C-alpha cells in the first residue's frame, strides 16, 4: 500500500468533515438533518456554474455557499415554521435537490450526466514551508488545496463556539431541553433556524470542494451519500466536533482503500465501493449496541430512537 494513502485520506475526508460540522450543529440543536447531501449537491452545481461563468474560484465558492444556504433556508422553513416532519422534509429536499441539479445540468449546460470544462480554474496546491520537506508528515499536512485547510481549521472553531460561547450554550440547551430554553426567554425557532443555515454554510463549502477542488466537474448525484456517512459519524461521536472529525477521517481512509485496492489486488470494484457504506452500517450498529446495553438492562423495550 502506497504511503500516498495518507495524503488521499485527508483529501477524501474533507467533504465528510465539512458535512459533519454542519450536521452536528443541527444535531446539537435537536434536528436530525438528513438533507446534507441535498445541500452539498446544489452547492456543487452552483460552484461549477459560478466558476465557469466568472472564471473565478472565489465566485464559485460564494455561489456554492449561497445556493446551499438557500436550500437550508427552505428546509428550515418547512421543518421549523410549517412543522413538516424532519425526516420527510429531509428526503424531499434531498431528492428535490438531485432532480433540480440534474434538470439544470441539462438545461444550462446541455449535458445529461456530467459537465466539465478546461475553462474552469483549478485550486492550486499549497505547500507549507518547512513542513513540506518532512517525510510522512508532509503528506498529511502539506500540498493540499485551500478548502482542505479551511475545513480542518474550522473544527476547533466550531468546538470553541459550541462549548464556550453563549450562542453555543443556547444551541445545546435548545437541542436537549427546548422547553427549558423557551421558558428562559430564548427564541427556540430562531436558534434552530440559525443552526440549519450554518449547516447550509458548511455543506456549501463541502459541495464547492467536491466540484471544484476534489475534482473539477459536476456529475449527477456526485455526493455519493457522503452526507449520510457524515451523519453516521455524528451519531457515533454524539455530536462532538473533534470526535466526529476523527470518525470522518476513518471513513475517508476506508474510501481511500476502496480506491487503491482494486489496483493492487484483483478484487472487484463493487465490493470495495461497498466499504464506506458497510462501515457506516457497522458504526450505527455499534452506536445502537452501546446505548442498548445501557438501556435494556433496565427497560423491557424502548420505543424511541438513538
Amino acid at each position, binding site marked *: 500500500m502506497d504511503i500516498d494513502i495518507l495524503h488521499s485520506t485527508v483529501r477524501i475526508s474533507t467533504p465528510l468533515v465539512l458535512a459533519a460540522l454542519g450536521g452536528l450543529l443541527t*444535531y*446539537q440543536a*435537536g434536528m*436530525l438533518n*438528513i438533507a446534507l447531501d441535498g445541500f452539498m449537491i446544489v452547492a456543487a452545481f452552483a460552484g461549477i456554474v459560478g466558476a465557469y461563468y466568472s472564471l473565478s474560484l472565489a465566485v464559485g465558492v460564494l455561489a456554492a455557499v449561497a445556493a446551499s444556504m438557500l436550500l437550508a433556508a427552505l428546509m428550515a422553513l*418547512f421543518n421549523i415554521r*410549517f*412543522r*413538516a*416532519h*424532519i*425526516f*420527510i422534509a429531509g*428526503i*424531499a*429536499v434531498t*431528492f*428535490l435537490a438531485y*432532480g*433540480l441539479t*440534474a*434538470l*439544470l*445540468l*441539462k*438545461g*444550462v449546460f446541455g449535458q*445529461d450526466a456530467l459537465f466539465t470544462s478546461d475553462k474552469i480554474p483549478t485550486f492550486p496546491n499549497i505547500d507549507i514551508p518547512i513542513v513540506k520537506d518532512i517525510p510522512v508528515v508532509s503528506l498529511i499536512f502539506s500540498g493540499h488545496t485551500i478548502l482542505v485547510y479551511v475545513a480542518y481549521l474550522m473544527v476547533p472553531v466550531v468546538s470553541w463556539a459550541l462549548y464556550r460561547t453563549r450562542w453555543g450554550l443556547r444551541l445545546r440547551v435548545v*437541542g*436537549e*431541553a427546548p*422547553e*427549558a430554553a423557551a421558558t428562559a426567554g430564548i427564541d427556540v425557532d430562531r436558534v434552530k433556524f440559525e443552526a440549519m443555515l450554518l449547516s447550509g454554510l458548511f455543506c456549501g463549502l463541502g459541495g464547492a470542494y467536491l466540484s471544484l477542488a476534489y475534482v473539477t466537474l459536476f456529475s449527477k448525484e456526485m455526493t455519493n*451519500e457522503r452526507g*449520510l456517512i457524515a*451523519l*453516521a459519524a455524528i*451519531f457515533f461521536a*454524539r*455530536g462532538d466536533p473533534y470526535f466526529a472529525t476523527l470518525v470522518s477521517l476513518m471513513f475517508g481512509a476506508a474510501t481511500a482503500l476502496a480506491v487503491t485496492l482494486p489496483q493492487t489486488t484483483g478484487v*472487484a470494484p*463493487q*465490493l470495495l*465501493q*461497498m466499504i464506506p*457504506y*458497510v462501515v457506516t*452500517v457497522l458504526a*450505527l*450498529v455499534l*452506536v*445502537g*449496541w452501546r*446505548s*442498548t446495553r445501557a438501556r435494556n438492562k433496565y427497560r423491557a*423495550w424502548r*420505543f*424511541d*430512537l*438513538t
Partner: protein
Amino acid sequence: MAQPLAALAVAIIVGGLLVLAIGDDPFQIYWILFSGSLVGVPNLMVTLQIMTPLIFTGLAVSIAFRAGLWNIGVEGQMLVGAFFAGLVGWLAPLPAIAHIPLTLVAAMLGGALWAAIPALLRVKLNVNELVVCLMLNPIALLLTGYFTIHLLKAPGPTNKLPDVLATAMLPQFSLFSQANAGVFIALGCCLLFVLINGATVRGFEWKIMGLNPAFAYYGGVDVPGRAISAMLVSGAIAGLGGAEEVMGVYRAFFDGFSPGYGFDGIAVAMLANFNPLGVIAAAGLFGALESGGAVLQMTTNISKYLVEVLQFTTVLILAAQFSWGWLRRRRIGGSHQAIGAVAEPEPNPVAEEA
C-alpha cells in the same frame, strides 16, 4: 382531498418557473408531459408500464410507514427481490404453473430478507432504521451488481444475468411497451391490503402502533414482533415489484435496472396518505409524469428530472402542516409518533419528571 391537489398545483407552478428560467415555454413543456403520457394508446401503455412498479413500491412504503417504520430501503429491497427472481427464473426448469409462483415467492423472500436487516437492528438494538435503509440501498446495488457482472454474467457485452426461462415470464399486453400481467398482481396486492388494513386484527394492530407504540405495547400488542412483520411484508412487496420488472419487463435481471422506483415509492405513498387505493391513483399520476418525462427528455432540452422536482416538491408541501383549519388532515409528523418518531439526539429525562 384538497391538500394533495393543492400541493401538486404549487409544484407545477414551481416547475413552470424553472422551465422559464431555462428558457423554454412552460405550457409547451407541460403539454408534452401530458400528451406524452396519456394521449394515444402507445403512450398509455408506457405509462402503464412505469406505473406498475410504483404501485408495488408505493404500497410497500405505505405498509411500513402506517405501522410507524421508516422503511426507505424499498429501493434496495426491490433490487434484491429482483435478483432472486432473476436467479430462480433462470435456473429452475419447471412448468409455468409452478415456475411463476416459485419465482414470485423467491422475490418476496429476497425483499423480506433485505428488509429484515433494518428491522432486526431497529427492534433489537434500537438503531435508527432510516440511515441503515439508506445505506443498504447502495449496498444492494453494488452487491447484486457484483454477482451479476463478475460471477454470473450472461455471455456477451451486457450487464445482466442470463434470461429467465419462458416459463417464468409474465405475458406482456402489447407491442407498445413492456406493460405486463404483473400489474394485476400489483392491483391484487392493493386490494388485499385494503382488506388487511380495515378488517384484520394485524392491520388494526399496525395502525395503532403506528400512532402510539407504547400504548399498543401496553395493551398487549407484540409491538416488536409486529414491527418486524411490517418491515418483512413491506420488503416482500418491494421484492414483488422487482419480480415484475424481471419477469415482465426485461425478462432478465439487469444490473441497475431501476431508475429509482423505490424512492419514487416514497412520494407515491405520501401523496396517497398511505392508503392502498390511494397508492393506485398516486402511482398512476407519477407514472404518467415519468412517462411524459421520458418523452420530454427525448424531444426537448428539458431533462426528465423535471418530474423528480415536481414529485418531491409535492411531497415537501404535503409534509407541511399549514395552520389553516380546512387543511387539517392526518399528517405523518403529528400522528406518526411511532417507532421512528422525531429523534431527540439526547434523551430528555427531566422534561418527563412529574
